[in-house]
């Protein structure tokens, strides 16, 4: 399956990467090349094979329900491009 320019734009939009027309056109053959190559997996017979869930046998541990974190607002906001009144600030969102 090969992708077209519209697909490249859609993917870029989903990934939130601003892409100019020239960039999208440059990406098109690159992506098609890679996608064409990964599609060789289609040759592999995976009938009855379960997708890998955990690479090394291990089980998910359950944490105790205790408050052990938080109260570190300064650290949380320390690197913010824009923080005001204890909040992160972003361009106004209209819902």
């Amino acid at each position: 399956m090969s992708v077209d320019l519209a697909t490249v734009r859609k993917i870029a939009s989903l990934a939130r990467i601003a892409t100019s027309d020239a960039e999208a056109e440059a990406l098109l053959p690159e992506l098609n090349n890679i996608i064409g190559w990964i599609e060789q997996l289609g040759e592999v017979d995976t009938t009855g094979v379960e997708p890998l869930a955990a690479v090394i046998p291990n089980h998910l541990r359950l944490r105790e329900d205790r408050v052990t974190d938080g109260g570190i607002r300064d650290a949380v906001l320390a690197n913010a491009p824009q923080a005001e009144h204890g909040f992160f600030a972003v361009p106004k969102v209209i819902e």
Partner: protein
Amino acid sequence: MTNLTDLGIADIRDGVATGSFSAREVATAFNDAVVAGRALNAYLVETPELALAAADAADAAKALGDLKPLSGVPLGIKDLFCTKGVETTAASGILKGFVPQYESTISAKLFDAGAGMLGKLNMDQFAMGSSNETSAFGNVISPWKRNDGGNAALAPGGSSGGSSSAVSARMAPGATGTDTGGSIRQPAAFTGISGIKPTYGRCSRWGTIAFASSLDQAGPMARDVRDCAIMLEAMSGFDPKDATSLDLPVPAWETSLSGDLKGKKVGVPKEYRVDGMPPEIEALWQQGIAYVKDAGAEIVEVSLPHTKYALPTYYIIAPAEASSNLARYDGVRYGLRDLPDGANLQQMYAATRADGFGAEVKRRIMIGTYVLSAGFYDAYFTKAQKVRALIVRDFEQAFATCDVLLTPTAPSAAFGLGEKSDDPLAMYLNDVFTVPSSLAGLPAMSVPGGLDGQGLPLGLQIIGRALDEQSVLNAGLAIEQRAGFTARPGQWW
């Protein structure tokens, strides 16, 4: 007196312990080497004061008879590890200026063990690359040169290219690396040093910037196998903050080191004899086989039938995970924000990410987004996870008849900077031998096996059973003892 920067980790540790030199002398020597080696662009941030502080603490501990396993050892830390108070960018513009308020588990463990930090090491951006050409802060240059009289700048490998370059150039006795598809082993091979990726789950991923969560593992890069064992012991261990961390004791790998392989079976996977493999690589491999035989091992041919599908599998799973892991870089809470005039929130995201991510990162995010997108998930991602299960099964079956596998680390010696960067796929193929064991989460290491015709180092890879780092290290040691690899780059910088 010996040049202190020629010493490895064990030598420094022992020398400080016996009082042959002070930790401060060692730190000073390496700090100077870091400054002298700036032409290699291996370090993104230099932290001489941290190296000295740890050295002074080591010297004080020595006086009190209270030395720790890595007291007096200064290390380079790959910039993928978040370091408290020290800028950490993963070599990406999107994290420029980011100063973590926390210390990654791996760097914290090393520092707790007495190690100091020389600085943060350059790398491929977000660990995506095999040549260190994707860093937003310039290529890392290998200290090695071809013996053809040319002066081509060579790739130190990637993604841990700053680590490999620094260790090889004696700008650090050891460095942390991370390995997602070969990012410790391939650069180690390219620069004539050793590096091990432990079993997935041995090293905590907490505080290490994620590339592909199901594959990422930290590991040491150092001059020799013993140094790797020492560092790996300090880095490993259960971390309740990482759900995939293995709750197992850390074996005493260093004290159990042995180059005697009597009774061991070394598997040689026939599928690794790939089309177009250079004769020098084939010769290296045969040499490696001879070394382990000489160490007493029996050679068995094994089959890993799905080997050829490992790379495409990897290039579905890793970008898919990365596309999601890197969604957090959005200009809201840290790092770069690009807010064009009048832009709304979503436009801010798109502008920030377009500006902040390099071309290879964007490419992989795009691929990852595509393979997960509606209608394609099963065809690509689920399929890849099934093939991954088959690759795991291949290894299980191979290890029914052998203890470790021996393969070349990379299909070639170091290539020149710029030689492959225009062709992503050609670059991806560099990881053909390292990726399968990454997909299976198995411990694997690269040790220097010799030089090619141009005088460049070549690496041999040993892959072990899950949790059996000891056998990997021992086979590595057996090769190291026989290869007598003493070549080192001439200091041209």
